[in-house]
């Protein structure tokens, strides 16, 4: 069981700091993290949906609203990409040209 440091960053997202072991975790906390950062066991962290994590009462939890928003945005981008793909293919662009444009 190892320990990590968590804090809410300037983008209102959760940052998770992994010490390498070169310095004691207390020194890493003071040197690399802002005020308000706390040390937690990594076994207490959620396993998925990192961008929806948030710090509530000293525990890292998944914000379900944030998670749903992220999933909706991903779904929207996928749908938009598929639509664009269909239009470009209909124009006669090759697969390589479409991939270069859309990724």
């Amino acid at each position, binding site marked *: 069981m190892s320990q990590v440091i968590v804090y809410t960053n300037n983008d209102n997202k959760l*940052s998770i*700091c*992994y*010490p*390498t072991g070169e*310095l004691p975790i207390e020194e890493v906390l003071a040197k690399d993290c802002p005020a308000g950062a706390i040390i937690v066991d990594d076994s207490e962290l959620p396993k998925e949906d*990192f961008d929806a994590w948030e710090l509530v009462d000293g525990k890292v939890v998944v914000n379900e609203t944030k998670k749903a928003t992220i999933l909706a945005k991903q779904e929207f*981008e996928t749908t938009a990409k598929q639509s664009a793909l269909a239009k470009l293919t209909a124009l006669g662009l090759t697969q390589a040209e479409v991939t270069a444009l859309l990724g």
Partner: protein
Amino acid sequence: MSTIINGTSSAITFPDSTVQNSAGLTAGGTIASGTITALTATTGTVTTLTAPTSTITTLNAPSGVLATQNGMNGIASAWVYFDSGGAIAGTAFNVSSVTRNSTGVYTVNFTTAMSSANYAVIACAGNSNNSNAMVNASANATGSCQVTCQVGTSAGYQDSSMFVVVHSR
């Protein structure tokens, strides 16, 4: 001035040098083809040690900048290999921690800061699934740098294991 040498060495020569009891051996002398078995400067400072064709088997620096950061030009000043979550996957040198700020956005924090922010960062994604990954290094500060991973032309970032090497004077 008096110099006392104990032992059976046949010849020890310090041409053009001065041996002072309080200041040690000052610059100017040359040991042309000899071997220094142990050079100890318990409380002193070796400002410049020139050994053009010699081999230094072990340069022991238990404390000070050499203990946590290479002081030789051209040698990496820091490196780290971390997994897609930001946890340290391999060895690290002069890196105190890696912070995952959001998906695919990581900050590498140095144990001993670079002398300036004008250093070179070499980074690559280690995930075989990200064969077309674009890795960007930015926000260089003396104490940290940021690396990000982007796949294709997607606007979003994607997690990936990363190899990061820093070269600095």
